C-alpha cells in the first residue's frame, strides 16, 4: 500500500508545471495544461522557449520549495516534462 504522502506522477507533473508557470510567466502552457500529451515529450526549450537561466530557475525552485537537489550532471534529465516527471518522481518519494 502506498504511503499517503507519496506523490503520483500526476502530482509531480503538476508541481513542475506550477514552477514553469512561475519562472516563465509569459510562456504558453496550454499544450501542457490539458493533461499528458505528445507535448510532454517535446523539449521544454523548444516548446516554451526556455533558456539555460530558466532551467537554473527550475532547479532553484525545486530546491527552495521542495528541498530537492538536482546535481548539474542530471540537468539533461529536465529536458521534457515527461523526463522531469520520470526523474523527479523517485526523488519526491525519497527513493
Amino acid at each position: 500500500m502506498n504511503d499517503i504522502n507519496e506523490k503520483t506522477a500526476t502530482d509531480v507533473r503538476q508541481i513542475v508545471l506550477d514552477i514553469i508557470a512561475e519562472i516563465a510567466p509569459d510562456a504558453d502552457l496550454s499544450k501542457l495544461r490539458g493533461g499528458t500529451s505528445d507535448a510532454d515529450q517535446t523539449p521544454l526549450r523548444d516548446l516554451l522557449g526556455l533558456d539555460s537561466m530558466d532551467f537554473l530557475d527550475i532547479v532553484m525552485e525545486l530546491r527552495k520549495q521542495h528541498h530537492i537537489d538536482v546535481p548539474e550532471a542530471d540537468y539533461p534529465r529536465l529536458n521534457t516534462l515527461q523526463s522531469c516527471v520520470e526523474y523527479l518522481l523517485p526523488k519526491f518519494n525519497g527513493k
Partner: protein
Amino acid sequence: MEWSQRIVITGVGLVAPNGNSLAEFRKHLLEGCARIQRIDMRYMGLVLAGVCAFNATDYQTKKEIRTGTRAGSIGIYCAHKAIESSRLPWELLDKSRVGIYVGITEHGTVETENEVYQLSQFGYDTKYWNHHHNPRTVANNPAGEISINLGITGPHYTLGGACAGGNLGIIQGVQMLRLGEVDYALAGGVGESTGSFGIFAGFKNQGALAEHADPNKASRPFDRDRNGIVISEGGCLFTLERLDDALERNAKIYGEIVGYGINSDATNTVLPDSERQAECMRLALKKAELQPNDIDIVSTHATSTVEGDRRECQALRDVFKDAPNTHFNNTKSFIGHTMGAAGALELAGNLPSFEDKTIHPTINVDNLDPECELPNLVTHTPKKLQRANTILSNSFGMLGINSTVIVQRFNS
C-alpha cells in the same frame, strides 16, 4: 559653435511619483499636486516615499520583470517613451550608433538586501543564493537592461554620481555626441532606492529622513520646519542628438544643452560645500558663455535637509547676487528625492517653461527659513515670467560631487 557640436533634446521619457509623462508631470507641478505615500519598509514599518505607478508590462515581458531590476524597468519605460516622443524612425536606425548613459546614485543595494533576506529564510545556506544576483547587481545593470530590451548595440553604461547622477548621464551624452562616438544618446538617470531599507535607515540614523503627519507636506525644502529627505523612485531619459541632425529631420527641439559643470568639494562625505557649488555653477555659465542674469530659472537641488538647503542657498545667493531676473524653484517638494533620476527629472519638469513662460513653484514653504532666503524664490503657486529662455539645473551628491546643467530654448 558648429551645429554638429551643438546638442539638443529631442525626446523626453520619464516616470515620477506624480506623473508618467512630461505632460502629466508638468500639469501636476503647475497644479501643486504632490504625491508622497507611506509604504511598509522591511524591518522599519511605515516610511514616507515617492512611488511610481507606471505599467512595466507595456514594454517588458513578465519574465524580464521577474529576472531584472526595478531600476531596469524604470529605465526601459523611460527609454521607450524618450524614443517615441523623439519621433525617430527607430526601426530604420543603426542601433550601433545609439549610446545609453544612465546616471545612478547607487545600484545593487536593493537587490542584495532582497537576496540576503531570501537567504535568511533558508538558514543562510548559500546554495539558495539566486543565480540572477550578479546580472542584477552589476553597476551597468539599468543601462544594460535598456540595451537588451531595445536591441541597442552601441555603448551602454551607468554613471555613479550619488544624487548628481542624472546630470552626469546628460553630460556624458553631450560629450559622446560631440566626440562623434554616437549619433543618438539616451541620457539621464534612474533611481530605485525606495526598495532599500538600508538607505531609509541610513538617512534616519543620520537625522535626515523626513517625517510629517501629511505625507505630501513631508518634503519641504527651504521651510523652517523641514526635517529631512523623502526617498523616492523615478527616472528620466532624454533623447539627445546633434543640432544639424535634429534640424534635418525637422525634430521638435525641447531645448539645447549649452553648458555644464562638474566638480568636487573634496571636504566631507555628506556635508556640501557652498564655495564649490558656486564654482560648479560658474563653470557651467562659463561653458555656456552666459552671465548669471541670463538665467531665468534655477532648478535647485535642495533636498529638504536642514544644512544642505542652507548651503545651496548660500551658493545661489553668491552666484546670482546681481541677477534680478533669475527665479528659483524646487521639484523635490512635490516628488521627494528620486536620487539618480533627480537631475534629469527636475530639468524635464521645467522644460515646458520655454513654451508657457511659467515657472512651477516650490510647495510646502509655509515659513521660510531665513537662511534659505533667495530673491525670486517662487513658492506656493506658479509664476508667469517676462522671459523664460534659459534654465540652470543643479544636482549635488554625497562625497561632494556637484553638477550643473544649463539648457536654453532653441530659436531656429
